[in-house]
């Protein structure tokens, strides 16, 4: 690459305060700029994929302190001196799937996450699409893994008892004249990129399948292999199966520092003690760069990208049966890039997301503007889409690298480190395939010392508790006879019984919070958003933990629901 000409172009566009140089095998961009968008643009300008080097962003944002990673504000010694064979940092879909694949081996595996549950950040805040990979170009890791990952979903979801449906993806086109272009594009996708299911649906067939899409659609590009899955459901299922097979999961555990000597991580400091792992897997999402820095192996940068999705009432679920979006070739600045309408496995519609660059890795606040923008665009996909059907919305932050590709490789300078970084969309789809490769990397690294043995007790099938409202009359009746708690409905919108909530509390990874229960069995996910069931779930958790209700939390430390009794205690009366 020609650094000098790149530097010139940078200065022309961004002024004299930015500079680029190749250092330690990285393209390092430094200096300072007055807006985050400019920083992202400057770094993007420096991308040179052919070089095999990544862009590292050292540009300061004028007048802004980038928020630090939020960490649990307690300390204990629960993990002091632990020496796992493998330490996985990050309990998202990547970390959880890697833990599960590694649990095929007789290893001491520890997964840590700073949050109070798995899948709290990107993995719990996306639309759950299992992508066909039709929009990706050959040559990227994303494209390589998406084809492999997509094919694995039927088996993985069956083993882990996670609902999965291949509902198909439709990309509609309004311009008739675009047909030859798209025809050629589809041909290229099928035969060059090997997305072999890609085809064109003519108008009639499209509307036979999806009658409520924009009547102006002339044709659509169709991928029947596309599907949807509950993203946090899959992450938790992977995590639980890993634990069933002997892996350990430690939540509320933040990695705070590392000691690196002679190109090896010797110890890892957390708020729960110092660990001495043989190998570290960096699956830390938006904080992967920070972990890489601690490990002395920072050769890429993450630029977080925020996206907001809305969830619509099940009543509107019939509007779209699969995954639908519109493609216009004209640029409309008001419209956000990408996004679509997706029919979830729970029969809601999910609308979004948009894409906004941000330096705040953990700002999950939603904004009205994002929802308005998404709806303005998606009403072009399906006219009848209505904001009135929104029951909730959420924001996620994607961990993108400037190359916009994954980083799945061993440390470049630090030997006992494996990066699984830059996992943005289609990271959910790719996870099963990526996890297999990371498993190989870990085993080959461990082999250098001593060949690990297979775990003779490994069982790929998760022991999933029953979902009562999915059962037949007879099966449901039988289960209630065995356990009457299955007959006591707590959540009326989603029809969840007390027994199912207790099952979630007794699961291999117990997260006894309102959000933890909500993610696992769905009370509070419906149209009343927990108005009726939240006090009941609070009570069930308090009885399970045998603590007063004011000790029950919504999610992490400090998110208590209640402040104690309304009335005086005995002591107060005595006074």
């Amino acid at each position: 690459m020609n650094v000098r000409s790149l530097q010139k172009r940078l200065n022309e566009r961004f002024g004299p305060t930015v500079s680029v140089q190749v250092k330690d095998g990285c393209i390092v961009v430094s200096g300072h700029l007055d807006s985050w968008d400019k920083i992202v643009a400057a770094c993007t300008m420096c991308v040179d994929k052919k070089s095999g080097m990544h862009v590292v962003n050292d540009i300061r944002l004028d007048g802004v302190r980038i928020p630090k990673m939020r960490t649990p504000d307690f300390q204990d010694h629960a993990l002091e001196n632990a020496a796992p064979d493998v330490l996985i940092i990050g309990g998202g879909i990547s970390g959880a799937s890697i833990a599960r694949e590694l649990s095929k081996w007789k290893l001491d595996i520890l997964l840590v996450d700073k949050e109070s549950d798995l899948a709290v950040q990107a993995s719990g805040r996306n639309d759950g699409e299992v992508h066909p990979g039709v929009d990706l170009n050959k040559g990227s890791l994303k494209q390589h893994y998406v084809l492999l990952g997509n094919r694995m979903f039927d088996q993985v979801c069956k083993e882990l008892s996670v609902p999965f449906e291949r509902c198909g993806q439709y990309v509609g086109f309004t311009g008739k004249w675009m047909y030859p272009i798209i025809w050629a594009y589809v041909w290229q996708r099928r035969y060059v990129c090997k997305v072999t299911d890609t085809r064109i649906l003519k108008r009639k067939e499209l509307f036979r399948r999806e009658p409520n899409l924009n009547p102006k659609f002339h044709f659509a590009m169709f991928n029947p292999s596309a599907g949807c899955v509950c993203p946090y459901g899959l992450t938790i299922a992977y995590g639980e199966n890993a634990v069933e097979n002997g892996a350990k999961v430690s939540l509320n555990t933040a990695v705070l520092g590392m000691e690196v000597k002679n190109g090896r991580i010797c110890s890892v400091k957390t708020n729960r003690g110092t660990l001495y792992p043989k190998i570290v897997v960096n699956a830390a999402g938006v904080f992967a760069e920070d972990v890489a820095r601690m490990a002395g192996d920072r050769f890429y940068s993450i630029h977080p990208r925020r996206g907001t999705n809305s969830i619509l009432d099940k009543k509107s679920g019939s509007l779209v049966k699969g995954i639908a979006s519109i493609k216009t070739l004209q640029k409309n600045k008001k419209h956000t890039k990408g996004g679509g309408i997706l029919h979830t496995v729970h029969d809601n519609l999910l609308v979004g997301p948009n894409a906004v660059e941000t330096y705040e890795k953990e700002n999950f606040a939603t904004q009205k503007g994002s929802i308005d923008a998404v709806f303005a665009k998606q009403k072009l996909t399906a006219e009848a889409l209505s904001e009135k059907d929104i029951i909730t919305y959420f924001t996620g932050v994607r961990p993108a690298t400037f190359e916009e590709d994954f980083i799945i490789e061993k440390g470049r300078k630090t030997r006992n480190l494996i990066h699984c970084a830059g996992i943005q969309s289609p990271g959910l789809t790719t996870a099963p395939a990526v996890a297999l490769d990371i498993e190989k990397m870990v085993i080959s690294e461990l082999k250098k010392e001593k060949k690990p043995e297979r775990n003779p007790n490994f069982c790929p099938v998760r022991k999933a508790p029953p979902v009562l409202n999915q059962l037949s009359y007879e099966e449901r009746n039988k289960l209630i006879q065995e356990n009457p708690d299955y007959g006591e409905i707590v959540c009326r919108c989603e029809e969840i019984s007390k027994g199912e909530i207790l099952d979630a509390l007794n699961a291999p990874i117990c997260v006894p919070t309102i959000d933890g229960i909500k993610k696992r069995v769905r009370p509070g996910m419906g149209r009343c958003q927990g108005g009726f069931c939240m006090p009941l779930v609070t009570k069930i958790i308090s009885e399970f933990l045998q603590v007063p209700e004011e000790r029950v939390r919504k999610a992490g430390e400090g998110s208590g629901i209640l402040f104690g009794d309304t009335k005086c205690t005995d002591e107060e009366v005595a006074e």
Partner: protein
Amino acid sequence: MKELTCIVCPNGCSLRVEKKDGQWEVSGNQCKRGITFAIEEMTHPMRTISSTVRTSFPEVPVIPVRVSAEIPKERIFDVMKQINQVRVEKICGTGDVVIENVLGLQVDVIVTSDILREWEKEQK
């Protein structure tokens, strides 16, 4: 002159009340009850309050109570203090007195639900 909203019935008349020559004059009312209300509001406003009291039964941690008749508005929080200290140890029901003649106001604090009795029945 003072403006009040009558709360005797849902009509919610806007009342004007004024003292003229030692006599209260009320206007804006649609019925006689409005006059009584306005004068009472100006001289000694009265209110009822509802709350709960603690019990010794963990399944029914609190039961509802109210004052048996109106109390002076300015004594509301004094009465609340008394209510907050009560602990019901025995099964009781609607109409039962938990504080007799609270603070000497000639008013009792009474239970307004049979929930404890119902719960006791269920236990049997």
